[in-house]
């Protein structure tokens, strides 16, 4: 079964065409990396998956359900199956870091207060923030916010995890730890959709890859297929940062 499927999706914001006839599918339990230069529609692709943006034409299927046709409880039901790490983490700044991670558990489970705290602490420990439960987001560095956002996205162990630039702003050691965590999550059966500029990371995490340029899909396939691509931009990307 496909966890996510894009079927000829196009999207424009005013005169700016962000996605142009994009099609791909991601089998459940696989990791799909979206690559491309800044402003090429990668984040908008993720927002389509979670239903924050509707396509102008084409369809987006999540667990074989057309996300654009869902609303209310049906949409919430599908969203509960997804975790989303935003590009800027988007932590709730009126809550502590721990409460941010605990938020989905408090909203969507019947866990007791102690269980929620214990689980949230465990999730924070997974990203190396076990000592920062009571800190406010404003007190964290950019990289720490990113990790806290990842902990929140993984709070309910969702079957689909959408991750927007997970290693941006992280030091190389922490970035590698996050990569390892994502690989471990994938091996646990979670489908990953990862937007990244970090090619070495993508090589570690990804099973399938796509390169976007000006809203169009320049290449889509396995690592070997992309490494063998004749497309100059794809070659540049795949050879970037010591990759390839």
């Amino acid at each position, binding site marked *: 079964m496909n966890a996510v499927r894009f079927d000829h999706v196009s999207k424009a914001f005013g005169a700016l065409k962000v996605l142009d006839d994009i099609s791909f599918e991601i089998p459940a339990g696989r990791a799909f990396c979206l690559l491309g230069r800044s402003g090429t529609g990668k984040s908008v692709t993720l927002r389509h998956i979670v239903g924050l943006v509707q396509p102008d034409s084409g369809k987006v299927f999540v667990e074989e359900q057309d996300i654009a046709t869902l609303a209310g409880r049906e949409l919430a039901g599908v969203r509960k199956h997804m975790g989303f790490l*935003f590009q800027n983490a*988007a932590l*709730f700044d009126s809550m502590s870091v721990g409460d941010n991670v605990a938020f989905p558990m408090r909203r969507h489970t019947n866990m007791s207060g102690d269980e929620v705290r214990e689980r949230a602490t465990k999730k924070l420990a997974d990203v190396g923030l076990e000592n920062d439960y009571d800190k406010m987001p404003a007190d964290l560095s950019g990289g720490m916010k990113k990790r806290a956002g990842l902990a929140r996205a993984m709070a309910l162990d969702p079957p689909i995890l959408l991750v927007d630039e997970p290693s941006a702003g992280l030091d190389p050691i922490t970035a590698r730890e996050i990569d390892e965590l994502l690989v471990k999550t994938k091996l646990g059966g979670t489908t990953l959709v990862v937007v990244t500029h970090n090619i070495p990371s993508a090589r570690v995490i990804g099973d399938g890859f796509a390169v976007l340029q000006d809203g169009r899909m320049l290449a889509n396939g396995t690592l070997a297929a992309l490494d063998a691509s004749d497309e100059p931009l794809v070659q540049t990307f795949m050879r970037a940062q010591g990759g390839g």
Partner: protein
Amino acid sequence: MQQVSVVDRVGTGVLGAFESVGAIATFGARAFVEAARPPYDLREILRHVYQFGSRSAPLILTAGFAIGIVLSMHTRASLERFGAESLIPAGLAMALIRETGPLTAGLLVAGRVGAGIGAEIGAMKVSEQIDALEANAVDAFKYLAVTRILALMIAMPLLTILMDFSGIFGGYVAEAAVSGMSWRLYFERAFSYITYSDIIPATLKTIVFGFLIAVVSSYLGFTTSRGTEGVGEASTRSVVMSSMLIILSDVVLVKIIFFFYPAVSG
């Protein structure tokens, strides 16, 4: 050519104003519908009631006390001419409870809480926190707007009662300084002409003020754009629009109160 341009601009402005009023009315109507549907987020509503109350209470108490003193001085100056100083407490209490208290409390809360709601929701909008709520399968409209609207509808009458009593106390302090009147006598005289039909409709009309402040501020927060500049604008417009709506709606509400309670108008 210049005339056409002015007409165009005025027309665009008027249409824009109608569009905003329509959008805010739709927003308010949606809040009513969503408020009736579970889940009810009682904890969040109570948290906001406490937050709005604790944020506004010092301002309300101080302003009420000062207004009570000023009203007492004016009432004394007027009633002294007719030798009716004994009516000062009743006149002041009547003015405060029927109109000055509710209206002033509404305007103060619009400034204190309305600005806060507009800025808070606006900041959440521009920093993608509202999107994060939606992505976490939480209805952001219900979680952010409906809870605040209900909370302010609960908090507003309570703050008005606080305003009334602090004003009456301010009036007593002013009166005691001039005439040495005891608190007990002042209190008895203040409430000698006041009936429930003076207190209840005037206090309950502030539920409408609370609704208007929270709906307008939440709407402007949700429609914020252009980063921090937009957040500042949402905050300022929340105060201006909700203050204006409070004053306009007060005219209608007073007319309605007079219709249902003819004794109040007499």
